[in-house]
């Protein structure tokens, strides 16, 4: 095989990416068009009606956008107190030791558990617990979904943060130690300022993960089509409304679900792009 054919072959293979991604956007846009045209783009995004009675169909994405934002942000809040210690454990306190390797294996395995099994665990273990603690009567809801979602994104945030914490140059830390700083002070005054942007970007990417998580949320969020009024109430996320209703939807409802998919696609793409850009910048500096 000569160089020319080889180059053409690789180029052709690489063409698959623009084709697939273009195909994704094209399919979403053409099928979402009907809903946007019928309701108006902004009206669709800001309407909180979701009813499919014949003749009076009304579809709006606001309850699901709210549900997605609430579960994601709450998951992030629950995730930080665990992922940050893991990152410090692996990247600073026990850097390079066997116990750190074991902890990273554990978090890697957590990342590997399929989301449907997280959903089962949340449903059969966490939900009864939430009911027993009288936090919410039905057990499922935004809070339950966010708790499990948090466990699911800890591995992503932790492993990436640890990578940046590991990269903090030793001479900086040694300089601080020689000035009499304690370890806690070194972490606060040297490690966090240096690794901070990298750690922050790992949380942005963790958000990107949580936004589109489907099965866990579908099994735990309670599946009601209203705007959740508190963190213990039930709701639906953008991903879970699609998972719940796509199979039975047709015409305008089908198009509305695709439109929600399109919005979700752009939100995750945007968040991931920001995260990746920040990581690139953090790696260079």
């Amino acid at each position, binding site marked *: 095989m000569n160089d020319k054919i080889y180059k053409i072959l690789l180029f052709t293979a690489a063409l698959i990416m623009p084709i697939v991604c273009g195909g994704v956007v094209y399919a979403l846009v053409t099928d979402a068009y009907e809903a946007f045209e019928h309701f108006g783009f902004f009206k669709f995004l800001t309407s909180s009606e979701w009813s499919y009675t014949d003749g009076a169909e009304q579809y709006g994405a606001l309850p699901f956008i709210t549900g997605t934002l609430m579960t994601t942000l709450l998951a992030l809040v629950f995730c930080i107190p665990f992922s940050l210690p893991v990152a410090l454990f692996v990247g600073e306190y026990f850097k390079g030791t066997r116990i750190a390797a074991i902890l990273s294996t554990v978090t890697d395995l957590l990342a*590997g558990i399929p*989301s449907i099994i997280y959903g089962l665990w949340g449903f059969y273990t966490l939900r009864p617990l939430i009911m027993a603690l009288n936090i919410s009567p039905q057990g499922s809801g935004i809070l339950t979904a966010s708790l499990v979602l948090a466990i699911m994104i800890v591995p992503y945030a932790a492993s990436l943060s640890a990578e940046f914490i590991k990269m903090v140059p030793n001479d900086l830390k040694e300089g601080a130690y020689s000035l009499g700083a304690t370890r806690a002070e070194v972490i606060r005054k040297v490690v966090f300022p240096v690794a901070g942007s990298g750690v922050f970007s790992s949380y942005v990417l963790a958000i990107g993960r949580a936004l589109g998580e489907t099965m866990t949320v579908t099994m735990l969020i309670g599946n009601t089509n209203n705007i959740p009024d508190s963190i213990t109430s039930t709701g639906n996320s953008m991903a879970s409304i699609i*998972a719940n209703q796509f199979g039975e939807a047709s015409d305008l409802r089908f198009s509305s679900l695709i439109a929600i998919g399109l919005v979700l696609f752009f939100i995750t793409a945007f968040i991931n792009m920001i995260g990746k850009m920040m990581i690139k910048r953090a790696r260079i500096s």
Partner: protein
Amino acid sequence: MAKDKAMLWMVCLFAALTAVPLFAILGEVLLRGYDQLTWSFFTEPTPTAFKAMKAIEAGEPIPGGIANGIIGTMIMLGMAAVFAVPTGIMCGAFLAENPKSRFAQVVSYLTDLLQGTPSVIIGIVTYIWIVVPMKGYSAIAGSVALFVMMLPLIIRSTEETLKILPASLKEAGLALGGNRARVMLKVQLPAAFGGIFTGVLLAISRVIGETAPLMFTALGCSFIRFAIDKPISAVPLLIWEFFNDPNLQELIWGASLFLLLFVLTLNLTAKYLAKKWNQ
């Protein structure tokens, strides 16, 4: 100093707490599922809800198993891998060979984009691409969804492995008179085999538990089937069915245990191989 100690203990405590869910999930699925993993569980298809109800009324264990799901998963995963592995490796090689080209940067960006796309969206898009024109759910549609999900993972692992190979390796090959294709095939790819293989294993373990993209493409099927143009089942789809059908709920745990053990073993194997080949 006291503050220092306190911080260390807090870090250790919360890091240890993070490990709890893994063991809690593993423990629960093991305890509730281990007695279902009999021979017939792997050789028989799912019972109908009626049969299961009869068995429950008679106080007997639910007959049948998840053979239809295992076979469906294998068929779809196999078809997806057959296309995704070579395409992904070639695409990854393209990225590693042309790091500076504009087009490669676009492809690299799109790979990130696709990797970050929620799986449920891959599901609805595949529905529009395949299920609508074929006028029905099929194993083909399911494998297309899995293919799209595997592709970016394989591209990335191939690209990264090829990039960390010492440049001298490629240069030596070229100096000996090999053309670029030969050097890639006979020198670079064999040297990168470990990393690429690990990447493929991880890609498989990532998509094997995917439920959402299969719900709208493969749909599910209650008997063992080998036809690729008809609806077909998969292990995660069965778990979802069992979850929603009160009569079949007993079967959830066996199926979950099987899936969980499979995924975790794949993960550990990949990690072990990566470590071994890196030395």
